[in-house]
């Protein structure tokens, strides 16, 4: 018995390790870019980082591109060029050019989404222009481009400038055929003179393809509307002539009331109750009760206006970011089916009520 066990063990040792993937023999990539001008042609670009040491920080070693008909084919073609097998498991950012998402985005993600090895927490970023140059262009002071994009988006998420998303959360709405919700992803652009990338706003999706864009300010408003405040959210509004006020949203409460009468169009009441701090307001006098009341009224109006504007924009894009459809379907699935959401949504009557209240005007943080 013992002899056989010994024999079996030595066989195992000799046969070795079928699934071994030595770290040193793999090219780990942190960032990838997809350019798919047409459905047939998918250019995949990976950025291979170079480990740093005490003298030299980590940097981007190589950028390799290849074109194939599917994502998997492109990656296999990259393997032909790269010195070691490309390991996609640690990908942190996936850049997709805006033109690639004029048509269905899911084929670009299918492999990455279902592959057991791929990371579901990679950030999806839409790029203005081609995605490949984002890894080719030098960025000043940031030798490791992939990490740069990752931190860029993460800090923007924290300050509620772009939605907090990743491969998993981005793909979730794409599956939903009943159109009750929509995906969105941050949009960035490259500034060649400054050698920097910049967050430009958000790309809105409608049924797996791009349907509109929002600016950073609008995104913040939209995220607030969706009750997705990051760690920090600031808004700036004009206060009278030549005066501007920047406020920081502290706490927020949202109430969504759905009206789905048996006959007739559906409508939604969104009421927000928020408290804020004033960070920039040179005229001051916020210690006076009267001024405070006035400012509160003004801010409430401003927020409501920008929310209305943003709402119009996403309705126009037919992109149900707020998941109103989902809420309706959760409330009354039968009625929701009758509504024919893709037609009903752009016509939806959304009433927004905002009640803003100042809580601090002295020391700001």
């Amino acid at each position: 018995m013992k002899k056989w066990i010994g024999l079996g063990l030595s066989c195992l040792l000799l046969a070795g390790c079928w699934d071994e993937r030595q770290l040193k023999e793999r090219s780990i990539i942190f960032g990838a870019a997809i350019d798919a001008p047409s459905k047939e042609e998918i250019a995949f670009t990976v950025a291979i980082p170079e480990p740093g040491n005490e003298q030299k920080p980590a940097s981007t070693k190589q950028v390799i591109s290849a074109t194939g008909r599917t994502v998997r084919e492109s990656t296999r073609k990259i393997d032909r060029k790269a010195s070691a097998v490309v390991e996609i498991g640690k990908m942190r950012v996936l850049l997709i050019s805006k033109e690639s998402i004029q048509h269905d985005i899911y084929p670009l993600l299918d492999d990455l989404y279902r592959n057991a090895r791929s990371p579901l927490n990679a950030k999806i970023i839409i790029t203005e222009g081609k995605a490949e140059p984002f890894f080719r262009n030098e960025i000043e002071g940031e030798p490791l481009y992939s990490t740069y994009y990752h931190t860029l988006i993460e800090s923007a998420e924290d300050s509620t400038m772009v939605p907090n998303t990743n491969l998993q959360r981005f793909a979730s709405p794409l599956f939903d055929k009943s159109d009750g919700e929509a995906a969105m992803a941050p949009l960035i652009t490259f500034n060649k003179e400054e050698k920097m990338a910049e967050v430009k706003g958000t790309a809105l999706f409608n049924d797996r393809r791009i349907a509109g864009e929002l600016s950073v300010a609008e995104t913040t408003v939209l995220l607030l509307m969706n009750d997705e405040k990051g760690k920090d959210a600031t808004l700036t509004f004009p206060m009278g002539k030549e005066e501007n006020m920047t406020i920081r949203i502290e706490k927020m409460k949202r109430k969504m009331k759905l009206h789905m009468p048996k006959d007739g169009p559906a409508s939604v009441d969104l009421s927000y109750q928020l408290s804020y701090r004033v960070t920039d307001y040179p005229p001051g006098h916020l210690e006076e009760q009267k001024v405070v009341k006035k400012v509160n009224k003004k801010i409430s109006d401003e927020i409501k206006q920008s929310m209305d504007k943003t709402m119009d924009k996403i309705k126009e894009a037919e992109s149900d970011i707020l998941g109103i459809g989902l809420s309706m379907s959760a409330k009354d699935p039968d009625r929701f089916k009758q509504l024919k959401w893709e037609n009903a949504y752009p016509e939806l009557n959304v009433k927004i009520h905002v009640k803003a209240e100042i809580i601090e005007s002295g020391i700001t943080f």
Partner: protein
Amino acid sequence: MAVWRSGEDDPLSLTAGGNTKPQSNDSSLFSLSAAENTKQLIDLLGKSGDLKERTFSYEKAEGRLLYFETIVDSGRIEESILRPLSETDMQNVEEALTVLEREEIADPDKAIAALMQGKVLLFLEGRSVCIACGVETFFLRSIMEPANEKVIRGSHDGFVENLNTNIALIRERLKSPGLMIEYVQLGQKTNTRVAIIYEKEIANPELVEELKRRVNSIDMDMMFDPGFLEDMVEDSTLSPFPQVLNTERPDRAIANIMDGRIALFGDGSPTCIIMPVTFFALYQSPDDYNARTIPGSFYRLLRFLSFLIAILMPGLYIAIVGFHLEVLPADLILTIKGGVQTVPFPPIFEVLAMETAIEIIREAGVRLPTPIGQTIGIVGGLIIGDAVVSAGFASRTTVIVVAVTAISSFVAPSAEMSTATRLIRFPLMILASLFGFYGLMFGVVLIAMHLCKLESLGRPYFAPLAPFRLKDMLRDTFIKQPAWKKKTRPLDSHPIREGAEFGSREWVKK
């Protein structure tokens, strides 16, 4: 509750004794002549240089003394045997002897055994028995704190090589009439005295019987304590885990005896063997009981953590670097990759080589005099480590992993346990290098199963985790509760008296 099954675990110890015992040599009984008797014994023993014979003939007494001059106290022979004999005017000569311990022996075999123990044999003319007088000399080492079981607070004495002194150390602190000491003589040639010590009002009699059965079955020429003794009474000698607790500290021995465990002493060794123990008892240090509750618990938890680190860390490292690199966060993976990039060997060889090197350094340092041992440690640890990294033979991460593992393995308060943890990690490393996390999982599951199976003196070894007993676990296993909360003894030794504390903290009202 577990049922105690006698003997089932250890059928081997049953058959060991019995028929192999050599028959006593058929020397005839003593005669009436003292000279003849001593001659008979001398012939039996052969002419050993230190075997002395002294004749005397006083008024009332005439006879001979036979003794080994090296192991008797000559002053005491003069004072308590020869002088009283010369001065006696009593009829009965023996009455005159002032030695404390004396025994009449009629059997030459037994007489020789007594001679070996350092007794003086007194043959009187006209009697066919000899009187064995206990005038042994003791070569006492001073009572010092054992070097490998140092504590910060608490008593600083330790057992010595003499059995009587050791028992004295225990008696001195445990002044209970229930403290039982039973002697067994083991080793056909060495004739080592072994003492079984237990508290009869606490220790489970079945366990005591079982241990006696095992000890009595021992039949060999030499009793080399404690290693031989341990091998003979342990439940599973092939297990990597020690199933007995070795200690040189009286306080530790007493604490265990008071928990219903049984201590086994051999003459000539300062180490006391305690059975039955659990895995967790081997991770308790006497320091814990002197420490306050919260720090005591913290350090105890730290010890278990270091056990896990010691057995798992190299395996985890190999599995991650070789199989599951996704597990590392992005920033870390790049750092580690930078380290392993230029190393020419696969991680398993790298780690194995470094682990072996550390073991060699340790082994080399143990037996060298302290100053040289330290130097070896520094040279080996620092210089080799640094040179290996800068030469590119091993990555920095490997060195860190190996070093942390080695240090963690030394945390165990029991030297045997520390060796066990260091050994276990080698198979785990190999499994991890073959099958990644799964290999490690299979290895850990096997160890867990083994621990569930293992028994110490027939009691579950991995208690109170398996079988699971929450109360015991919280009392003295993972956390150290204040002394007044230890109302009952741990159940793993199956004590017959469970209560241990009876409201000491219910202070008398002012």
